């Protein structure tokens, strides 16, 4: 077995080993811990990019990388599967991880114990969830990432965080129960937990068991929709994300995308075109739920006084857009949605990091108008004040302002940045299902979705303009925040990534289209997983 074959499991092993290693060091050896953690995250980024290239290597026939754990053949053992979608998610995670980790090195990693360990375990859970090809293994990785996220959401302590964290934990524990019920129902009906094997067996499920199967799928779906934040299940999300420390919130942006990722994968694999009588199950729910989420998120964005809340509701808008796009289940829409997912995740993550820097400058007196802020608690600032070492950047306000404007453009989906390309790709795909100008009558549902998408962009624009004026222009005697280089560089890095996918729009879009095509025609995925060859037993040395 070549070294490159083992590369697939590295995104799980690397954070696991790093996290465990970091536990051995005392909290006082902060520099060493930070160094190990940073090196590990950088290596993870390199591995993720290598896997991305591996997954995209052969453009003709999509090849799926399969890693048999314990060398058991596919339906019996647990498999890790690398295809374009999981490679994309791994890369996105690694990029966000780099940005949040380096940002946290300025001050946040000091404000509580075991930050780096929890961070690494979170990465392990995320990478595992993206790679696994087995439903129960997915549960295990889901729990790993949730357990780490429980610790991280409380990082920095304080009443507000504990209160929001309590709700976050209860909701996710209840969600985990739903997850288990769904998984076991599906197992009870089909007798397998391997996703590829499930896709083979679902068309053959007898009619009297189909209702049980679909109930299982629906209950499983609810568990992920809680995570993704679909409308009636999303009230916890803005508060929890706003309360979390800035680098934690930035990496949490990918957590809501885990739910979206799994729904995208399972709905197309298990209930896609080849699923017989269950084909298309749940699509309407996703479409309508997604639309309700966009509406709720857009109203929330407009109503937010605090910028943290604004960012939290932006996540809901992003999730809603993705869910509605998945509900439409068309290749072009899916590829647009994938582009939108990358762009919006990077943007909101950068925005979460930026908010903390911007709010550092704010004079509390300037916020008298924002009365409601008090309701959310002022104890965000109770971090221990320490002497900060590092390079403070010049022209702080100008740089912060430029980053803020970039976030605004990206969130609203205005040209020239990637937010526009993403929305444009989505809208054209929705309005021209059979190629540009070739479609017949566009159904009313599509018109409603198009209107919602545009209005959500408008509401983001209004809210961002208002917040920007209040922060950068309104203060008469503005205090300039002290921003370290290591804090602004991650924000700029994420925004530059958005710029990069704008400039490289063609190749990125081609990748997304290839991803969407293989998702909508999962035959290759199924064949590759189920026919993955076992390793031959190593030749034993002859003993005497």
């Amino acid at each position, binding site marked *: 077995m070549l070294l490159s074959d083992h590369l697939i499991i590295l995104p799980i092993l690397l954070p696991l080993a790093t996290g465990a290693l970091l536990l051995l060091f005392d909290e006082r050896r902060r520099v060493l811990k930070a160094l190990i953690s940073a090196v590990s995250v950088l290596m993870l980024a390199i591995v993720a990019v290598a896997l991305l290239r591996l997954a995209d290597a052969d453009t003709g026939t999509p090849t799926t990388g399969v890693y048999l754990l314990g060398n058991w053949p596919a339906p019996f053992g647990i498999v890790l599967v690398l295809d374009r979608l999981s490679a994309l998610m791994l890369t996105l995670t690694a990029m966000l991880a780099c940005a949040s980790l380096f940002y946290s090195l300025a001050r946040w990693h000091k404000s509580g114990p075991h930050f780096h360990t929890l961070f690494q375990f979170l990465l392990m859970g995320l990478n595992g969830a993206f790679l696994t090809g087995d439903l129960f293994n997915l549960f295990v990785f889901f*729990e790993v990432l949730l*357990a780490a996220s*429980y610790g991280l959401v409380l990082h920095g302590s*304080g*009443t507000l965080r*504990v209160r929001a964290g*309590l709700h976050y934990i209860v909701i996710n524990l209840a969600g985990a*129960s739903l997850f*288990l019920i769904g998984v076991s129902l599906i197992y009870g009906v089909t007798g397998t937990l391997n996703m590829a094997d499930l896709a083979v067996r679902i068309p053959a499920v007898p009619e009297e068991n189909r209702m049980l199967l679909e109930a299982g799928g629906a209950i499983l779906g609810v568990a992920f929709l809680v995570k993704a934040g679909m409308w009636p299940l999303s009230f916890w999300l803005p508060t929890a994300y706003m309360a979390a420390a800035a680098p934690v919130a930035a990496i949490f942006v990918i957590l809501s995308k885990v739910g979206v990722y799994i729904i995208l994968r399972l709905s197309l694999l298990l209930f896609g075109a080849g699923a017989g009588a269950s084909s298309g199950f749940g699509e309407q729910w996703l479409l309508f739920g997604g639309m309700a989420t966009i509406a709720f998120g857009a109203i929330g964005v407009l109503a937010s006084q605090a910028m943290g809340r604004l960012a939290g509701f932006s996540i809901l808008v992003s999730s809603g857009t993705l869910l509605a796009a998945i509900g439409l289940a068309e290749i072009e829409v899916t590829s647009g949605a994938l582009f939108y997912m990358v762009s919006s995740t990077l943007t909101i993550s950068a925005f979460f990091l930026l908010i903390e820097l911007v709010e550092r400058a704010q004079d509390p007196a300037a916020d008298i108008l924002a009365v409601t802020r008090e309701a959310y608690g002022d104890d965000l600032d109770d971090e221990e004040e320490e002497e900060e070492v590092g390079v403070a950047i010049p022209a702080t306000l100008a740089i912060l302002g430029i980053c803020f404007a970039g976030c605004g453009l990206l969130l609203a989906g205005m040209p020239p940045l990637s937010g526009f390309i993403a929305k444009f790709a989505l809208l054209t795909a929705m309005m021209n299902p059979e190629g540009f100008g070739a479609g017949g009558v566009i159904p009313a549902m599509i018109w409603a979705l198009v209107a919602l998408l545009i209005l959500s962009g408008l509401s983001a624009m209004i809210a961002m303009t208002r917040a920007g004026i209040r922060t950068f222009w309104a203060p008469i005697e503005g205090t300039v925040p002290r921003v370290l280089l290591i804090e602004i560089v991650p924000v700029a890095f994420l925004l530059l990534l958005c710029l990069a996918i704008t400039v490289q729009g063609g190749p990125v879009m081609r990748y997304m289209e290839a991803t969407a095509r293989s998702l909508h025609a999962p035959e290759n995925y199924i064949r590759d997983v189920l026919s993955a060859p076992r390793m031959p037993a190593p030749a034993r040395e002859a003993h005497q």
Partner: protein
Amino acid sequence: MELILAIGIGVLVGSGVWLLLRPRTYQVIVGLSLISYGVNLFIFSMGRLRVNASPVLPSGAPVDPTQYTDPIPQALVLTAIVIGFATTALFLVVLLASRGLTGSDHVDGREPN
């Protein structure tokens, strides 16, 4: 046996959901525990109920699978119990932290007016 198990799961989950919707954190944690017991029994029942059948196959000899019970749900239950136990313990810590910081055992951290 099916009926008793079904009623047992129903009662556990039903009481759990009711407690989960109560305003005190202690009720919530007991509710979550009851739900996870119900869910564990449910996973177990998804391997079909068999009496006097072992889930472990003997090695070597040819086996008749109808004489054995499905081992996978039992393995799943073990994992689910461990994970559920750990997360419940973690929640207990947060519950105590919340009680200490806010001085209230209400889930919102303050008494309703």
